[in-house]
């Protein structure tokens, strides 16, 4: 009557588990990235498609080869690598030579991820390392932006803001929809907001990081804008332009490389925000999202260590 004895499994409680697992989480991120992907294809057409394909395919291939070589198993069936590839492509200019995109992806997957032990163990956000690597290696190609409307080479909105030389800033509406020059996946604020909302709804990301990140940038730029006498459009522009939304919703929130404590995440978001504004206004680059997140990745282990929650019951004894 009872099934055969050796079928019975004995193990520790619990015997129920959430249907949420790593592959479903990765799938959610891919779903959330779809609007931005569509926007990118719509605005940048073939060049963007090529860069995206090249990045995703090489990320996937690199992941498989690494897993083989290092004899590891992956719970995500390599979809985390697809995310890395996709996100990396999203922060590259559409005109980037494809071989450079491959190189950056390889660096991201091999050096930033698998040398550290693979999924879950890397310190730095692989996609961002890929971008920073490419920016430092090929600054010329990496700062060559095409405007999707006329196909001409123009500076990105933030570049124009920083240089303040001649070119006119595109209007806020264009920035919101995404018909401006910039990295493949960063231009459409609308698409990114949709994706971010989906991730929040699915509880795959904690509101604390994007919330404090965007909040800090907004507050600081509002103050700076106030000093400059610019008005409210200025902070809103800062929020929507460049890679801020992409970074805040998809990259700063990467589980692996952000703090695990709630307070840590708040500090992480604030730190990212401070650094973005610092780099955008005072630094050598027009855009600082990638660096700010990477720099906060560096601080994450310390944040985790010093922001542990008070354990339940660690209160003054009544006895």
């Amino acid at each position, binding site marked *: 009557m009872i099934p055969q*004895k*050796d*079928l*019975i*499994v*004995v*193990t*520790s409680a619990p015997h129920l588990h959430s249907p949420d697992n790593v592959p479903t989480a990765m799938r959610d991120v891919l779903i959330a990235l779809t609007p931005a992907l569509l926007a990118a294809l719509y605005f940048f057409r073939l060049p963007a498609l090529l860069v995206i394909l090249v990045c995703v395919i090489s990320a996937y291939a690199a992941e498989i080869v690494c897993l083989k070589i290092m004899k590891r198993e992956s719970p995500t069936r390599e979809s985390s690598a697809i995310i890395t590839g996709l996100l990396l492509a999203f922060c590259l200019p559409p005109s980037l030579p494809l071989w450079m995109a491959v190189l950056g992806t390889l660096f991201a997957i091999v050096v930033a991820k698998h040398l550290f032990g693979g999924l879950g163990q890397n310190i730095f956000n692989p996609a961002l390392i890929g971008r920073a690597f490419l920016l430092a290696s090929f600054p010329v190609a990496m700062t060559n932006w095409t405007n999707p409307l006329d196909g001409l080479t123009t500076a990105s909105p933030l570049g124009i803001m920083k240089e303040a030389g001649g070119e006119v800033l595109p209007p806020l509406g264009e920035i919101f929809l995404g018909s401006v020059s910039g990295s493949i996946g960063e231009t459409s604020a609308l698409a990114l907001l949709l994706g971010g909302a989906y991730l929040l709804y699915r509880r795959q990301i904690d509101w604390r990081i994007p919330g404090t990140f965007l909040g800090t940038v907004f507050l600081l730029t509002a103050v700076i804008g106030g000093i400059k006498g610019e008005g409210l459009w200025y902070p809103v522009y800062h929020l929507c332009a460049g890679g801020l939304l992409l970074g805040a919703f998809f990259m700063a929130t990467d589980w692996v490389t952000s703090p695990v404590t709630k307070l840590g995440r708040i500090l992480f978001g604030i730190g990212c925000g401070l650094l973005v504004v610092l780099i955008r206004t005072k630094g050598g680059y027009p855009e600082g999202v990638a660096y700010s997140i990477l720099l906060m990745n560096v601080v994450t282990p310390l944040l985790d260590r010093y922001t542990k929650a008070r354990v339940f019951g660690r209160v003054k004894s009544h006895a």
Partner: protein
Amino acid sequence: MLVAILSLGAIGAVFGIILGFAGKKFAVAVDPRVEALLQIMPGANCGACGLPGCAAFAEAIVAGSVKPSDCAPGGATLYEQIAAIMGTEVSAYEERKVAQLLCQGGYGRTRMLYRYEGIKDCRAALANFKGPKACDFGCVMQGSCFKVCPFGAIEMGADGLPVIDYYRCTACNKCVVECPQQILKLIGVSHLVTVRCLNTEKGKDAKANCSVACIKCKICEKNCPEDAVHVVAAGEGSVAVIDVEKCTNCGICAAKCPTKSIDMISPLSEEVVLEIGTTPDAGCQACGVCKTE
């Protein structure tokens, strides 16, 4: 030229004097022997000596609270070096030992009660009905010993039991302490015949659960020409035990044992046994990393 000589000389002299003065004035005695010992310690910081590391061991040697041979990984060469520094004689020669497993009940040989799922930790597995095996005395096969061996001498075999690389084993005792079933034992390499079962249940029960258990049949006892093996009382029952003092490694009991729970192996090749005490080649590579921390 003169300016250079004078000023540089002056700087030199001033600092020389200050240092000399400070060295005298603020001198703190450190036993130079401790430093000398530290230089020659294997540096694995394995803790086999029962102290928190090689540095502590060196201090303890100077303090006289341990003997050189307490450092198992060190081997005879080290004992001689220590003796040289301490100006003592090398203590009596100690035979090299290796850890051996006193259970042969791998998958297919011992009846299993259930399929264990969970962390690879023998104590964790034991928490459920004393482990997945019907025999309560054998190896739980979750490899806790494998995890603690600092010298990579243990691997988990295909039948689920740990396999010990006797050449790599330094007798550091870590696995012996770790094993919750206490079925790992340090055995001198010249003892070739071993009872590989600690099951003290009645023969019938033992046999029902495991095909390689000691079934208390006393055939070994009857056949031993040296009267070296006996089924002796242990726990709530009994089990065969070999008296190593009397055993001559003739191997008769191993040949006669109906369940083959006694076996005869020579853990190390003869050349290695002859060089007894040399540090095994694997393990501590004397990279010195441990010394800097």
